[in-house]
């Protein structure tokens, strides 16, 4: 999120990632834009969020994962476009 004068920039903006899914449609491998790729070692909570249905609907499926190496990250699938994003956990 940036305003018109390019002064405000969102903190924890989602980063686009590519994921490989397992048979249960859970992320198995996460590939960042930079090219490095990490396996998902374990899953935490998952939840769905529907918001702003009155203008530009936002529908996301979140899943909290631990990647190989121990990094904890929140992944979500934008159910409107099918794209996956990563965010820092709150």
């Amino acid at each position: 999120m940036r305003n018109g004068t390019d002064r405000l920039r969102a903190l924890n903006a989602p980063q686009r990632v590519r994921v490989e899914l397992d048979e249960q449609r859970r992320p198995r491998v996460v590939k960042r834009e930079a090219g490095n790729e990490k396996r998902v070692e374990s899953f935490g909570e998952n939840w769905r969020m529907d918001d702003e249905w009155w203008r530009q609907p936002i529908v996301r499926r979140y899943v909290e994962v631990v990647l190989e190496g121990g990094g904890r990250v929140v992944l979500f699938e934008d159910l409107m476009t099918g794209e996956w994003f990563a965010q820092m956990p709150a």
Partner: protein
Amino acid sequence: MTRTPRLTSDTAACCWIPLFALRCETARRPELAALPLALLAPDDTRRLWQVAPLARRAGVKPGMTVSQAIGLCPALKLCEPDPVHYDEQFARLVAALVTVSPVVEPVELGRVFVGTDGLEGLYGGAEEIVEAIKRGTRNAECGTEMESSLDCSAFPLPRSAFRVGWGRGKFVSWVAATRAKPGEAVIVPVGGEAKFLASQRLAVLPLDPDTHRRLLQLGVKTLGALVALPEEAVVSQFGRAGRRLWRLAAGLVSEPVVGRVVPEPIVAALTFFTPVGDRDLLAHALDKLVDRALGDPRRSGWRVQVVRVHAELEHGASWLVAATLKDPAATRERIAAPLKTQLERSPPAGAVERLVVEFTAFAPGTAELQLFARDAGAAARAGRRRALQSAAREIALRIRRPMLYHVIEVQPWSRLPERRYALIDFEP
């Protein structure tokens, strides 16, 4: 025992620059003037403090949260507040006014009362006094009494921002200033206070919101309507505060302007047991003397502008150096630095028997101990901010691009994590 002279004046000129802090920012960065601009509150960066007219037109108001404001005006330009800079600019304005009248009472950023009793002999009537005040603020930096250009000003604000009200007492002059058009003055002749005040709106009185609402519910919309009520009836409804409001509205209260006495020179001296020629020792003694002079209670609320050091040398000779600080200061480092430079460049010709530090001229207010926040907490905050600004400038110089940001809450309640907080450039 010396008696402190009391500087007061019944007639007052109120000099008012609305949105002073915001105007300081646009004066410093003129490119901001054309943008819908808002300043974040110094004590709560989630909220807006001052809002430029362009942003106001979009519905943005002071006190709103950043998220509300961005929702109303997506192009809103947010600025980090710089209270030290505003305070310094205001101190310059006050210093300029002191050249016109010795009775000057700063009230808040952008609002200052000037006592005008006795100035008739110097300048003439009220109109001429008001002109002298305007001229004084314009010419302070030029050191001339001639009509000067717009950019030759005591403080870099557009002259049109300056409004002046003249009358008997601070309240009348303040109301007159609020009625003045930008760059102009309203003069209320002595004896004409009641007539002038009668048509003014109730909001000019120092009312709490509840009293304001109750008076409006009673159908009282102007000061004239309030004065039309019996004084005792107002007192029975609103108590002692009601009496004061009624008397203010009737023009019966005339609070004088109370100025501050500029301190006499402050002197700190040290006599050495044996004459000293070592420069390090002299520099150390200089530090101690500056500290001692700064600690003098008379210095409180004033910054040092001119400092002199003189030394009595062996065999009856003497040594003297003086420094005029471009930016008046109240810290040892900034005051002692030019003196030490001179000590290195032209040291005393012999060993020093007695060393004397003297502060001879002062400027009102201090960055370190601000005019409107004289408590220790505010002084510490100002000090930290100055250190942070200095570090930020250093970083910007080294890496040549802005890398420092301030985190502000935008929609902390949002379910979307990226909408909760945002970064704003930190520009010292």
